[in-house]
């Protein structure tokens, strides 16, 4: 599905991404993790075809992403930006229908079954009752659901998520990623997500791509990648990694230098 060949990006004389090569297969979910400034968002923009690399290629189905026509690209690749939709005065249904834009001719008409796709996206995201409400009257969590429904209506083969859980409370974070995961399994969707929360990344992603200083530090399944020494090297934080008691997925616990603020009762009494 995706192949990066010697992909590099330099912005204003600064090298953001060093030459990197990797391949991602169709139907899997990938997480891109790494500290701030590691080049995660830049890599995502290159994969979305919005920017041209300074060297190398980001290939989608064998063709450079930036070489697709805009609408052809939008039929294959959808992007969910952080923060969800802005407060616009369109209704939920109107906003979701805009996801069909790449399939419409210049009169705004669509040959295929656009209406049914929109219906389904609204239903799947539990937005059927909200469809006539205006987007600017919704809560942040509801707006994020609208954004996801709109992306679904776009029927992409590749979904790029740019820190989708930022600004969401934990209930909505899990709900959002559960939805994406179910959708990915149903439709053989390829998902690439920039994620801040390493525990969520380890749970949801088949493989993790760890970026550090513009290069690839590691690329593999969470069980191989989420290791205390690698995390300390990349993030500069000491951690303990434990298997999740119910799922067995590796989960991180932070181990700061300073002792915990709330002293243990046993220590206090002894």
């Amino acid at each position, binding site marked *: 599905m995706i192949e990066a060949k010697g992909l590099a990006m330099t912005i204003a004389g600064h090298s953001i991404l060093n030459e990197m090569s990797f391949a991602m297969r169709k139907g899997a979910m990938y997480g891109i993790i790494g500290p701030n400034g590691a080049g995660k968002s830049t890599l995502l923009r290159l994969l979305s075809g919005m920017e041209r690399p300074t060297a190398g290629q980001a290939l989608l189905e064998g063709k450079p992403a930036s070489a697709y026509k805009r609408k052809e690209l939008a039929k294959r690749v959808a992007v969910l930006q952080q923060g969800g939709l*802005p407060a616009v005065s369109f209704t939920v249904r109107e906003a979701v229908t*805009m996801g069909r*834009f790449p399939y419409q001719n210049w009169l705004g008409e669509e040959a295929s079954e656009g209406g049914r796709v929109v219906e389904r996206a609204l239903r799947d995201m539990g937005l059927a009752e909200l469809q006539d409400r205006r987007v600017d009257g919704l809560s942040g969590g509801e707006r994020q659901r609208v954004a996801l429904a709109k992306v679904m209506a776009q029927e992409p083969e590749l979904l790029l998520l740019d820190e989708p859980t930022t600004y969401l409370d934990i209930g909505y974070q899990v709900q959002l990623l559960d939805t994406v995961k179910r959708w990915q399994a149903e439709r053989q969707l390829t998902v690439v997500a920039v994620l801040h929360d390493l525990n969520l990344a380890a749970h949801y992603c088949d493989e993790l791509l760890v970026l550090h200083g513009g290069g690839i530090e590691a690329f593999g399944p969470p069980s191989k990648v989420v290791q205390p020494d690698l995390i300390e090297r990349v993030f500069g934080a000491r951690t303990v990694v434990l298997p999740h008691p119910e799922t067995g997925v590796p989960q991180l616990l932070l181990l700061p230098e300073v002792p915990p603020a709330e002293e243990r009762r046993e220590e206090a009494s002894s």
Partner: protein
Amino acid sequence: MLLLLASMVISLSIGSAGLALKDVWGILLHQLPWMPDAGTKWDAAEIAIVTQLRLSRVVLGVLVGACLALAGAGFQGVLRNPLADPFTLGVASGCSVGAAFMIVFGLQTALGLWTVPLVAFATGMVTLLIVFALSRARGAMNVETLILSGVIVQAFLGALVSFLVTLSQNVVNEAMFWLMGSLSARSWEHAKLVAPFLVVGLPVLIRYSQHLNLFVFGERHAAHLGVNVERTKLIVLLVSTLLTAVAVSVAGVVGFVGLVVPHLIRLIVGPDYRIIVPLSAIGGGFYLVWADTLARTALSPKEISLGIVTALIGAPFFAYLLYRRKVLQGGAS
């Protein structure tokens, strides 16, 4: 549309010569090819007033209003700036510098009648680029800063136009015309000049109206949905400036039409540009015909400049929009 036609006919019948509504209707209907000659029922002076003076003026008003309102809708959509309009962006003043220069000094080129609007278009585009350059800070364009830059540039160019006019003979009337706009002493020639620009501009803006809908989510968002953002911006800005240029070339600077009309349309029909764009053209015509009717009858037989009427309505409206933005601070509108 019906409202617009009715307004045109009513406006036709209002005027210093005092003709009854049914006479105006009658004269108009008798202009149709299969009707008997109007000369049998009305005298030649009455017919001339209706067909030559009033009808051409009303038609021109509709065309100019449509151009300005469309330009306003285009600017607002592509800049995602609810305060944008040919006047507040300084584009109208920019166009008036070029047009006034050509007319005051009687310059002509091989382009004939089209010279003035095309020169006005060129100076309008340059003005737009200057305003953009003034308001851009580290790549981002703030809504209020853009309008502030527009107003500054507009003040400067207004002075420049006054200066140009002062160099010519006919000082007072000409200066008033360019600064405040007017439809007086215009003829069918002017209407014929404006019409082709509108005929080309309207379909182009309609063609891009769905793109403008996607712009409200942000440029990057629109790009992810398959919109060619750079091309859309370029075309919509060019067409909006061209429509402004031709309107200014025949009617001077008539302010706030492009601000007021699309907003009122939006209040009535909602945020969809596919509806806003065509209705703005109709609404702009409607609005300007009435503004002009007011301008030529309020102090009859003396005329007020059209721009005075539109500014008296438009400026408070602009203040209201600015105030409401402040109240809703943070919300993207």
